[in-house]
C-alpha cells in the first residue's frame, strides 16, 4: 500500500490531549495539529481545501449506528448494519462513489466510543433473538488508518461478549499487525475487498497489492479471526476471466474455507451522474466505457447478461477452488440474477438476513448465536 500522508490534523479542542493525536503526530511529524472549538468548527472547515491529507478528530453528535442504506426495493439487500465512525477514505479508488457524494473536505474520525457503543447496545437489546452483522467499512476503509485510530480495538473488545452480533472490519489495506494480539473471541470478521492485480493497479492504485492483502489474510487467520471476502466491485475488462481465475486460485492458497463467514459479489455500479466526475478525476480509467445501463434502482450497471456471465464464472471458481459450502451472496442484485446464478433467490431482504444467521449458526456453533427462526426474521426489518 502506498502510505497516505496527513498534512493537517484538526482536532476538537477538548480532545487534543488524547492518545490518538499523539499517534498521528508521531506517524506524521511534519503534520500540523490544529485544535478547534465546536463554535469555530463549521467556519474553519468551510475554508479548508478539499483534501484527504487532512483529518478531523472529533465527537459525533448524531446517530452513528445505522442500517446499511442498500439500494431500493427492486433489489435484494442483506440488512447489514453500519457504524459510520470514519468518513472518507484516502485510497482514491477510481470507482468509489464516496469521493463524489461525501461532502466532507477531509477524513473525519469520531472517537466518542461510549456514545456509539450505547447506540449499538440499545439496538442489540431491542431484538435479542436477531443476529446482527455490523461493520465499519461503509463510509471509509476500516483499517487503513486504524493503527493510529485504534477504533477496531474499541469495537472488538465491545463485541467479544455479544452473542447476537458479529463485527466486520472491511479493508483494502494490509494494516492488520496491531490487531493480532487482541482478544476477539471469534466474534470478529476481517474481510477484504478483492480484485485481480491488474484491476488493483489501474483502479485501486493506492490500496495494498493483492499479495499484501493475502499476506494480511494469512496473519489474521493465524490469529483466529474469521474471514470475509467481497468481490465488489467486479470489474469487466478484456482478460477478466484470467484475472478473476488467478485471484481466486491465489486466495484459496491462503484462506481456509472453514474460516470464511461470507463472500459477496457485486458488479461495478454508480449513479449515472457520477460518470462525468469519474472521467474528470481519473481521465485514464476505462471503467466508465463498458456497456452499462440504468438499472431498476437508477444506478448504472453492466449489461445484465454480462453481469450474470461474470457472476456465474466467479461463483463457479469459488466453488471449485474454495468450497461448495461457502455462503456467497449478492450485494444489490435482483431476484432474477440470484435465480440465474445460484439457482435460488431469497424471498426478500429479511429472508437473506435469516439465511446469514442460519449459516453462521450451523457453521460456527461455538459462537453461541441464538437459534434463528425464520418467522421471527420476517419481523426484523431494517429501515
Amino acid at each position, binding site marked *: 500500500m502506498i502510505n497516505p500522508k496527513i498534512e493537517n490534523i484538526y482536532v476538537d479542542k477538548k480532545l487534543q490531549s488524547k492518545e490518538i493525536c499523539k499517534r498521528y503526530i508521531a506517524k506524521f511529524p511534519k503534520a500540523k495539529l490544529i485544535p478547534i472549538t465546536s463554535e469555530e468548527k463549521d467556519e474553519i472547515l468551510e475554508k479548508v481545501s478539499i483534501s484527504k491529507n487532512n483529518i478531523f478528530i472529533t465527537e459525533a453528535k448524531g446517530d452513528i449506528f445505522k442500517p446499511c442504506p442498500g439500494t431500493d426495493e427492486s433489489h435484494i439487500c442483506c440488512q447489514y448494519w453500519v457504524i459510520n465512525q470514519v468518513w472518507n477514505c484516502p485510497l482514491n479508488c477510481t470507482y468509489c462513489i464516496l469521493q463524489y457524494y461525501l461532502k466532507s473536505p477531509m477524513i473525519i474520525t469520531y472517537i466518542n466510543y461510549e456514545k456509539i457503543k450505547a447506540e449499538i447496545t440499545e439496538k442489540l437489546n431491542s431484538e435479542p433473538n436477531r443476529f446482527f452483522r455490523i461493520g465499519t467499512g461503509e463510509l471509509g476503509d476500516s483499517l487503513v488508518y486504524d493503527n493510529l485510530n485504534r477504533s477496531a480495538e474499541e469495537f472488538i473488545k465491545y463485541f467479544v461478549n455479544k452473542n447476537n452480533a458479529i463485527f466486520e472490519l472491511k479493508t483494502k489495506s494490509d494494516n492488520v499487525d496491531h490487531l493480532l494480539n487482541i482478544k476477539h473471541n471469534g466474534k470478529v470478521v476481517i474481510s477484504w475487498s478483492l480484485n485481480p492485480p491488474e484491476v488493483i493497479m489501474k483502479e485501486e492504485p493506492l490500496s495494498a497489492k493483492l499479495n499484501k492483502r493475502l499476506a494480511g489474510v494469512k496473519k489474521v487467520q493465524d490469529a483466529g479471526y474469521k474471514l470475509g471476502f467481497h468481490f465488489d466491485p467486479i470489474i469487466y475488462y478484456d482478460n477478466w476471466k484470467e484475472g478473476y481465475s488467478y485471484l481466486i486460485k491465489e486466495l484459496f492458497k491462503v484462506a481456509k474455507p472453514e474460516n470464511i463467514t461470507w463472500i459477496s459479489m457485486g458488479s461495478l455500479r454508480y449513479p449515472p451522474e457520477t460518470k462525468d466526475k469519474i472521467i474528470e478525476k481519473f481521465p485514464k480509467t476505462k471503467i466508465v*466505457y463498458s456497456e452499462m445501463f440504468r438499472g431498476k434502482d437508477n444506478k448504472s*450497471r453492466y449489461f*445484465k447478461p*454480462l453481469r450474470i456471465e461474470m457472476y456465474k464464472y466467479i461463483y463457479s471458481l469459488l466453488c471449485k477452488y474454495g468450497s461448495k459450502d461457502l455462503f456467497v451472496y449478492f450485494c444489490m442484485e435482483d431476484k432474477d440474477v440470484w435465480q440465474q446464478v445460484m439457482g435460488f433467490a431469497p424471498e426478500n431482504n429479511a429472508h437473506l438476513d435469516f439465511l446469514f444467521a442460519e449459516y453462521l449458526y450451523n457453521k460456527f456453533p461455538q459462537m453461541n448465536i441464538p437459534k434463528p427462526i425464520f418467522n421471527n426474521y420476517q419481523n426484523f426489518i431494517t429501515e
Partner: protein
Amino acid sequence: MKISLNKINTKKNYFNYHYWNYQFHKLENSIINSGINNPITLLQKRNELIPVHGFRRIEIAKKLNLSEIPVKIYSDEKSAEKLFKESVLENMINTELNIYEKCKIIQILNTHFSDHDKYYWQKLLELPLDKKFASTINSILQFPNEWIEFFINKNVPFKRIMTFSKIKNIELLSKLLPLNIGLNKMEQMFQFLFEISQRDEINVKSILNNIDFEGILKAPNLKDKQDIVKVLYNKLYDLRYPLQSQYLKIIDEKVDKLKLPNNIKIRYDKTFERSGINFNINVNSKNDLHNSIKWLDKNRDKITNIIEKE
C-alpha cells in the same frame, strides 16, 4: 471628431469578439441612409489608433468607401479595459450575444485584462463559473466555422457543447451537418464516438473508417437524409454497445420469425433489466380475441424461447 479610415489600424482587432454578422445588413442600410451617428471608439497606442468598439461599422464604412468616420479617441492605456467592457455591455443591451461571442469576450478579458473580475463576467455572460470550463472555452473558439454556426443556430447551451469539444478533429464530422440532425441525436453520436475512442484507444478517423462513414453518406440506397442518419447512428450504437446489440439482433430475428399478426405487438426492456416480454394485443371483436389466443397457443414454444432470452 471625424478622421480618415486609413488612419485606423484595422488589422489590430484583438478586441473584436464578433463572430456572426447577424445585423450587418440592417446596420449597413442604416449607415447608407443616415451615416454613422455613433462615434467609433479608438485607443491611441503610441502612433496607432486601435479600434475597441465599432468593428462592424468600420467594416461597413470600408465597404461603402466612406472617406471619414466619426470617432472618439482615448489615449489612456488603462481606459482600454473600461471601453471594452462598455462595448460588451452596450451590445448586451442591444442584442443577444451568441456562445462564440461570449467565449471570445472571456478570452479577451483573460488575455488583455488578467485582473478583471472573472466570476462577475462569467456570471453576467451566463457561462459556468467552474475553472474546469476554461479549456472548453478555448476549444469552442477553435471550432471550424460550420460547427460554430451549428451551435449558434441550435442555440446550444455551453455545458452541452462540452460533449462536442471532447472530439478532436471535429472537422472530420462536418459532413454530418447537412443531414439536419437534431441536437440530441448529434450529441449522442458524439458521445458514442468519444467513448469508443477512449475505450479502444483509437482516433475518430479510425472509427469513421470502421463504420464506413464515407460509404454510408454515398450509399445509393440511402437517399433520404433520415435513413443515412439512422444507419450512422445504429452503426455507432453497435460499436459502442456490441454485446447488447448482439443480443438485440438475436431477439429481433426470433421475433421476426414469429410473424406477428397485425394486432399483436411485442415490447421488451432492451437493457434486459426487467425480465419478460410485454404483449400488446389489440382486440376489437370476439373473433379478434379468439384468433389472438389461438395464435399465442400455436406459437407457445417460440414465444417461450424468446422469453428465455438470457
